[in-house]
């Protein structure tokens, strides 16, 4: 119990210091420069550049739609949009975590030889993926409008959900960035899990189409599911928004971020010594 108290006191003092450091002009300037350079660097030497971010979900959508339409598509309104939202949501989380999780391994020299605010490296890497995710969601919004589902109320409710999903992803990245420093096996485990997420998230099927046991496991065991259900309720609109699921999503985002960042703060120095 005492140990827990010590951790809380440590977290509190560290957090104060971190917030102060984050807000300094020099840190904000570094963050802007890192994001700017990251954007320029991300599509360097690529012929199609930014369009790759559209091409990947489009190919997956095409394949999934034609393979699963007859088996799972019946009874699901706007099935192509339904799949597209699933692909975009899972795609963002898996890609961002796979890239940003390795940020300390890829920038070992940087973090061990400069007293920079280390979260900047994570945030700047994540920023590129958030930008691409936002553009993909705008495309989903456009498709939703074509179906006639668009409403301003949905858009207002979308924003907190979007922020919570970013916070959820950031929380996972914080933990991964620490774990990667201790064991490279995490990379293999996470790559495997990323593939598993494609199937244990209701991307091409709906929860009522699976067994009650699987439904419970997918909803409560996979934190992406509540986000995806809420987002679909906002974008597709056939089903009224479930406030319980919506609140559940916001809670997941908040908890994952707080827990992830706390783990990051406690272990960052120990992890970097072993990176």
């Amino acid at each position, binding site marked *: 119990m005492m140990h827990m108290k010590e951790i809380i006191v440590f977290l509190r003092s560290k957090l104060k210091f971190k917030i102060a450091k984050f807000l300094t002009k*020099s840190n904000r300037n570094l963050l802007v420069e890192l994001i700017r350079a990251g954007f320029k*660097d991300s599509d*360097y030497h690529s012929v199609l550049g930014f369009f790759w971010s559209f091409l990947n979900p489009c190919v997956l959508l095409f394949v999934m739609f034609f393979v699963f339409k007859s088996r799972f598509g019946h009874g699901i309104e706007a099935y192509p949009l339904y799949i597209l939202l699933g692909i975009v949501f899972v795609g963002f989380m898996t890609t961002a975590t796979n890239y940003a999780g390795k940020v300390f391994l890829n920038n070992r020299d940087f973090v061990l030889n400069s007293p920079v605010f280390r979260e900047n490296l994570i945030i700047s890497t994540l920023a590129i993926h958030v930008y691409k995710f936002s553009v993909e969601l705008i495309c989903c919004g456009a498709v939703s409008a074509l179906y006639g589902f668009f409403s301003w109320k949905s858009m207002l409710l979308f924003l907190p959900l979007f922020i919570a999903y970013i916070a959820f992803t950031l929380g996972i990245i914080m933990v991964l960035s620490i774990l990667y420093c201790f064991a490279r096996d995490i990379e293999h485990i996470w790559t495997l899990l990323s593939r598993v997420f494609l199937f244990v998230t209701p991307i091409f099927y709906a929860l009522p189409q699976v067994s009650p046991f699987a439904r419970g496991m997918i909803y409560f065991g996979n934190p992406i599911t509540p986000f995806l259900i809420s987002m679909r309720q906002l974008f597709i609109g056939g089903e009224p928004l479930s406030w319980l699921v919506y609140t559940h999503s916001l809670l997941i985002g908040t908890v994952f971020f707080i827990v992830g960042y706390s783990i990051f703060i406690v272990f960052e120095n120990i992890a970097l010594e072993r990176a």
Partner: protein
Amino acid sequence: MNSVCVKAENLAKKFLVFREEKTTFRVLNSLIQGKPFRKEFWALKDVSFEIKRGDKLAIVGRNGSGKTTLLRILTGIYDKTSGDLLVEGNPKALLKLHIGLKADLPVLDNIYLFGAVHEVYRDVLKGKMEEILTVSGLGDLRYMPIKELSVGQLQRLLLSVFFEVKSDFLIFDEVFASVDQEFTQKCDSYFQNLFSSDKTVIMISHDVAFLKKFCKTAVWLDGGVVRMQGGIDEVLSEYGKSFSK
């Protein structure tokens, strides 16, 4: 009387290193038998010293004596394992040159990036851009990806950017090795100004002549402990004798 800028008392830093080559079998075996597969390695032990504001201190020692570890603790990169440390102000450290760069991006973008890492803002660098590029001899190569530059060109460029850092407390870790003769003059002029100012400077270098020229005091680290500290001539003389033993 100058006020204290850095005060270290019984500072120690411990790392955990592998006892033997790490293999999956050995790690699993250690876990099953409950035997630790890492052992303690003390990079610094009972290090005590004081730096007054405006001091120019050299830290000398053989490779692996704990010099860089000490600087990393001073700059907050590493946590100390035990002891007390007081650091007044916000030291700006150049512990390694090629950090924070994006190899595929042009020279210009990397100048802004490297500047931001060392708290030099874009508007300051814009005003000094021509001077930086001229001094580093890269006037015509500003749009070339930085990975195409030679080690020497890169070193000149990055040092030219770092010379724009404004701080009352600067730390350098062996970053001036292998600069060419032309650029050495530029470095000398920078250090002449720096060392005649009231700024606090900590310098690690294996170049004894360079340290004698600019530093007034020195700390000699040996195997993680302070072997000697005092005036630069005295410490460097004893340090030099240690090689002939």
